[in-house]
């Protein structure tokens, strides 16, 4: 494309201002890394069992479901929107998966993410085309999807046999690495590629950074908003399968406690709720912070109720560090 610019030739002489200079990392970019290192040091000192291969594998297993779930949320938050229904979608897709395995054989489980993607599509249509605020749309879906799951499951859990062949694909280990974490890694690689190297990802950054700009450049804004919500639903469905196979069954309430950690992980990693900056790779850091905190506090015998207090403080601290509040005249 240089042939487009070159007929114009240099119009104004500008000294080359170090065009290849690398940007200096900011505090917001380094913050999650520093937090992870500090947590590892503190918990290693508190409990000798923390700093071990076995516990590292433990942490990765614990983190996997949250990684997949919050990667979906990352795409939505990158646009400056929010998906509050992902917890409910996990419950619904998990329940679908368990029922499908029971009634149609274990491979029918792969239909569950499609159900989840369909719920995401409903979110997307209401938000992007009916132009309802994503906060309220997905808040409504949170309740509706939860209700549907309870209605069809009659509020009871459905177990699956732990010796399914499909379970070994997700629960086994390869060369010492837990499969579930490897699956999460695969999703992470795909998500990062999608965000950084595809038009889809670029559009989401553009919509979050300046929706009017994106529109005036010819970006089909509504369509890509819909895509983001479908991806969010799809990944929630995949997270549901991982979770279901990990706990050998599905409980109609199993997704609800995941919603807030998923959003917290995205924000703690460095993708602000206003969108436009951050990305999937950053979300991994957020998930690790949360998981290491939970794991370390368990090993250090911290009262489980107080664990939530610490976690909450961590979220607030992360937002305080990450958010550039100077330019904001109003904080809502």
């Amino acid at each position: 494309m240089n042939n487009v610019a070159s007929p114009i030739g240099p119009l104004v002489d500008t000294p080359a201002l170090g065009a290849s200079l690398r940007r200096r990392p900011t505090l917001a970019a380094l913050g999650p890394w520093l937090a992870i290192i500090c947590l590892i040091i503190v918990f290693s000192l508190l409990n000798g069992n923390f700093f071990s291969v076995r516990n590292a594998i433990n942490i990765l297993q614990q983190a996997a479901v949250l990684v997949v779930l919050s990667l979906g949320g990352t795409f939505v938050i990158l646009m400056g929107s929010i998906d509050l229904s992902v917890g409910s979608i996990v419950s619904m897709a998990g329940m679908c998966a368990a029922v499908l395995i029971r009634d149609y054989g274990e491979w029918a489980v792969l239909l569950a993410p499609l159900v989840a993607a369909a719920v995401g599509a409903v979110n997307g249509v209401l938000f992007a085309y009916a132009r309802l605020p994503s906060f309220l749309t997905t808040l409504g879906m949170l309740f509706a999807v939860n209700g549907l799951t309870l209605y069809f499951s009659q509020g009871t859990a459905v177990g699956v046999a732990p010796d399914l062949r499909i379970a070994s694909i997700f629960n086994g280990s390869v060369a010492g690495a837990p499969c579930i974490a490897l699956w999460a890694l695969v999703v992470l690689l795909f998500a990062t590629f999608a965000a950084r190297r595809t038009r889809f990802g670029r559009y989401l950054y553009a919509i979050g950074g300046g929706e009017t700009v994106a529109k005036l450049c010819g970006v089909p804004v509504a369509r890509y908003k819909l895509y983001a919500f479908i991806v969010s639903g799809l990944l929630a469905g995949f997270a549901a399968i991982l979770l279901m196979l990990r706990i050998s069954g599905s409980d109609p309430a199993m997704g609800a406690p995941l919603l807030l950690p998923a959003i917290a992980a995205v924000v703690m990693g460095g993708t602000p709720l206003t969108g436009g900056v951050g990305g999937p790779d950053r979300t991994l850091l957020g998930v690790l912070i949360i998981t290491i905190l939970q794991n370390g506090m368990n090993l250090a015998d911290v009262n489980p109720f107080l664990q939530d207090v610490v976690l909450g403080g961590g979220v607030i601290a992360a937002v305080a560090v990450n958010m550039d509040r100077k330019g904001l005249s109003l904080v809502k």
Partner: protein
Amino acid sequence: MLMPNQGSADAPALEVRDLRKSFGDKLALDGVSLTLYKGEVVGLVGENGAGKSTLLKAISGNLRPDAGTIIVRGRATAFRSYREATRQGIFHIYQDLALVPTMSVYENVLLSHEEKFSRFGVIDNKAMRDRTASMFREFGHGGIDVSQKVQNFDFSTRQVIEIVKAFALADLLGITTPVMLLDEPTAALTADEVGFLMGLIEKTRSRAAIIYVSHRLSEVIAVSDRIYVLKDGAVVATMPAAGVAKDELHERMVGRTREEFFYREHLQQPPGERVALAVKDFSRPGSFAEIDVSVHAGEIVGVAGLLGSGKSDFGRALAGDLPGATGRVDIAGKLMKTRSVRDMSEAGLGYLPPDRRDSVIPPLSVAINMTLARLTRRTESVLLDLRTEISDARGLIKSLGIKTSGATAPAGTLSGGNQQKVILGRWLLRQAKVLVLDNPTNGVDAGAKEEIYSVLRAIAASGVAILLISDDLLELIGLSNRILVMRGGSIVQEIAAPPEAKPHEVDVVAHMV
């Protein structure tokens, strides 16, 4: 300095001495002094960016000046907030009204002064209502139901509410001569409503001191006693309003002679053969009507007009960003059957909106900002080629002379002029055939303007058709091959502007007003 005929030796209601304010390296106020007496209306005129709004904000405590003195009724002050200024009787009435639409009239009028109507923290709503109602009666607007929500009133009534609010507060605070700062009060009003507002000013002028800012010069001349002309942050002329002609005022506002080199007039080329943009019978109710324009490849066609002439709406509608326009539009010989933003950009029309916030994504890199429009072409791959993006961006950074620390620097770190060049680069990469530019040099300094003009000349020379909508008359005259003048939504005149016979500003202004 002229003394107004107010027959009083009192101290001025407001005196501003040598006020200075800069934003970064841009000087917004360069030593402004101004005096305002009771019973007087002072008109304040100037081009966009001359410093009118900054001056009003500095006076009303919304902005802290870097240096200078503000003296209110003989006492030097330094307001730290608008609330403090209000307590001294300074009221700033904004272009975009500062009323809470979901609250009632009386709640708005007495907002933040409820303590005068409270006992032990409990608000006496009835007392507030009565007080407000009596104020409206006093100003001859007793018909306004003060318990109604503000959003139920039309725009001009809201303006009345805003002005009455200022007087009500002055009264409440025991101030006999409030200073009213009216910033473009008629910008969104119809002719009838303007008359209504003028009536209100007549009714109140004896008991206040008013600064009246407007782009509508005839209004300023009619309503003011004296007029201050502001240019580049300094007062360049003061004159009694009686007998001033609009053209004269305008010339003082612009205040510089057109320099041929500044606008690269020697690079102006005759238009090419091909018609790149053809517009026929283009109308939009309430905005513009029956516009016929064709712009040839390589031609720059200027669109002049005052605020409200419909020129900005015309540009936005062409870009597909304003629904409801009818008529025929052809781009590069292809009839546009549907005209969404996406259709227009896919056909090769690039639009630069007047507000830079609508064209730059500050946190994203220069390279990403530059390649965004090209990326939306249907023929582009869904996978990004980051290496090409960076090298294309570097090419443009070099050829357009963009000052940045690199192609990966966030666009928000660049100066306004350089951001504007990034956007022009965006449409170059997109290989746009038509560019619709609305005030492309809005808020950039003279040096950056000159560079942007160079870039525009080069873009035109490469065969792009440019429709240049601008409030800067000299820019229009200097850059355009011909100028279309819009008034009241229609094109009222076409003025040729070949390099050897550029029209004078007065020739253009004559058709604008």
